């Protein structure tokens, strides 16, 4: 018996939509990327019409830029810590919310709420919560947990902690939903079989839940990392990068270079660096995590 190749049924409408999508991607992502890469080889000033080609001078300057090194260090540490915290919390909340009743479905909506708020609103709201005379200090002092208000945003260490806390709060909504979807795709029969074989809850979590959550964890970790590596809006609203630039992320530093220091070319070079670092981290982590994914 011979098989006959199916005739190709090209759908021109879908093709048109694909072309539109690709076109938008090229116009709003690829073209600006190429333009930014070109600008990184110049000494462009946003106020001047003319700029000169300076080759790799901007990239060479980076090695001596203490502010860049400091912002990159802060960004990478924040990305690692918040990604772990948000995904661990996301798994925990997903396990708690993995019920079918109406109240749990409503709680899932509430859990996702931080993700739909704009970063600026989140930053402003938390700025008032964490203020010297804010709600958090009022609760801590009135309950006796602290003898005096804590300067959550007033010292470099605590300001960094506060930024991480707020970012983790936002991302946990997303990671909860992602892991919940992964949890709900795990066949119940696997747990039933494990119970019959005498596996306890912890063993079931380790041997069934965690491995089966791997695809969700890959998505959650990758997107958390990318979000944290380009974090800007929450920091601007919460701390403006202070005190003393201690919470200045690389994204915030790029904006400052471009529009305060008038160094468009150098800012573009730093943006290229951030892109390269983000790509390496995202691809490496994704590659590592995908090995853990289990196919049914």
């Amino acid at each position, binding site marked *: 018996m011979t098989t006959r190749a199916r005739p190709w049924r090209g*759908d*021109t*409408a879908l093709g*048109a*939509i694909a072309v*539109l999508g690709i*076109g*938008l991607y090229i116009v709003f992502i690829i073209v600006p990327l190429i333009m930014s890469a070109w600008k990184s080889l110049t000494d462009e*000033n*946003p*106020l*001047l019409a003319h700029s000169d080609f300076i080759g790799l001078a901007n990239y060479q300057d980076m090695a001596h830029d*203490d502010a860049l090194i400091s912002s990159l260090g802060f960004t990478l540490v924040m990305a690692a810590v918040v990604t772990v915290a948000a995904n661990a919390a996301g798994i925990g909340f997903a396990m708690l919310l993995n019920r079918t009743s109406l109240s749990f479905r409503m709680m899932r909506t509430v859990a996702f709420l931080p993700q739909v708020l704009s970063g600026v609103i989140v930053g402003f709201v938390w*700025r008032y919560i964490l*203020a*010297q*005379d804010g709600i958090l200090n009022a609760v801590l002092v009135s309950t006796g947990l602290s003898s*005096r*208000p*804590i*300067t*959550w*945003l*007033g*010292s470099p260490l605590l300001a960094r902690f506060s930024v991480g806390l707020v970012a983790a709060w936002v991302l946990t909504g997303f990671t909860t939903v992602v892991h919940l979807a992964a949890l709900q795709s795990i066949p119940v029969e696997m747990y039933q079989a494990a119970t019959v074989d005498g596996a306890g809850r912890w063993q079931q979590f380790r041997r069934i839940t965690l491995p089966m959550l791997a695809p969700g964890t890959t998505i959650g970790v990758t997107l958390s990392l990318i979000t944290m590596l380009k974090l800007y809006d929450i920091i601007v609203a919460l701390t*403006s990068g*202070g*005190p*003393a*630039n201690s919470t200045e992320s690389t994204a915030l530093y790029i904006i*400052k270079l*471009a*529009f*305060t*220091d*008038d*160094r*468009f070319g150098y800012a573009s070079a730093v943006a290229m660096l951030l892109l390269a670092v983000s790509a390496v981290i995202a691809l490496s982590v994704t590659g590592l995590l995908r090995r853990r994914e289990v196919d049914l």
Partner: protein
Amino acid sequence: MRHKRLLAACLAAGLALLAGCSAPSSGGSTGSVTLTYLTFETPSLTASFWDTSIANANKKVPGVTIKKLVAPSTDRDAYAKQLQASGQFPDLLQSITPSTFVQAGLLKPYDQTWVDANFLLPLGNAYKGKVYIPPTNSQIIPMVFYNKTLFTKAGINAPPKTWSDFLTVCAKLKAAGITPIELGGGDPFAASMPLVGILSADVLGKNPNWLQDRYSGKVKFTDANVQTAVAKYRTLAKNGYFEDGALGVKYADSITNFTSGKTAMYMMGSWFLGSVPKDHADDFGSFMTPTDDGSLVVPFAVGGSMAISAKTAAPDKATAFAQAWSLDPDNYKALIEGDGAFPMLKGKSLTDYHVTVTQVFKDSYAYVGQQNTKVSAFGWATNDDSMPSGLNDAFYAASQALYSSDDVAGQMAKLDAAWNTATK
């Protein structure tokens, strides 16, 4: 047929998206000119203030429609640069720092004859000999405002004259259980006020050309006299003369803290005068940052109204509107009463503006007209003493860092490095 309709719908959606990217036109439909005007809002300079002032100036300049733009923060310089980068540089820009924009050829100077005829200090904010913003008002940045009741409670009968007296006053206040100095350290510009006062008094007070000398490389931030001045700020911080957790206090909260009597002194620009509570205004007084020998140094900044874009399609109309707005006394009522601005219009006294001001405003305004040593307010000048791009941010960061760090030499070295990068 179904595919063709779907294709048409997709193309229409794509065209609609691209249509949103078209540049706005500056011509009106009836021959009038539309000018964009970059403004900024504060608790005193509200949307209503701008709308009213624009409407009043419009009455004097027919054929002009003003499209108001509002900067998302008080950093209108940075927003103006973003607009320039996206090809939307406004026709009129309120209270920007001209220097960077002038170097880029983006601003049009005012006619000097008109400036000379209308303002007390025609060259008060001139850059390279030309005026790009009418010198309509001035500020003293900072002053030291104080609460007379708290001073009396601590047994202090008069404001300090020398730095040594100032430290004694701080110690007395602290001993009486009163926080000596309020600091809005959470907002970078507010955090820098004590340092602005000290450097203006000690460095510029002895060498008014220090900033010009820095441009020519004759002096540095790491020089001994600058470090000695900065060390005074460290003394205040180390001795606990600022409130607890000052770096976490936002500017707006620092005003509330001081006006509600939680702290005894507040180093802030004279715009604070607009926030003095009217019901007990006589509780407040002001003095200048004390110097070692008690000599009076007034850190002065001449501000102004709006700059005009050199690229505006309607320079005559833009200039006419700017001049009409700048000379409208009604605009100054809000600026004086709400923003503590010291008016600089020629031939006018405070009564000509029909304002109601406090005694502390009158006492502070007196410094403007008196013969005394006026120097540029460090970091706030808009004339030739304005700092290069990016230095203000570096200065603010240093101020915040020095609140808790003793590394004066290191922070001054960072400022020198930032200056060298900005001016190379």
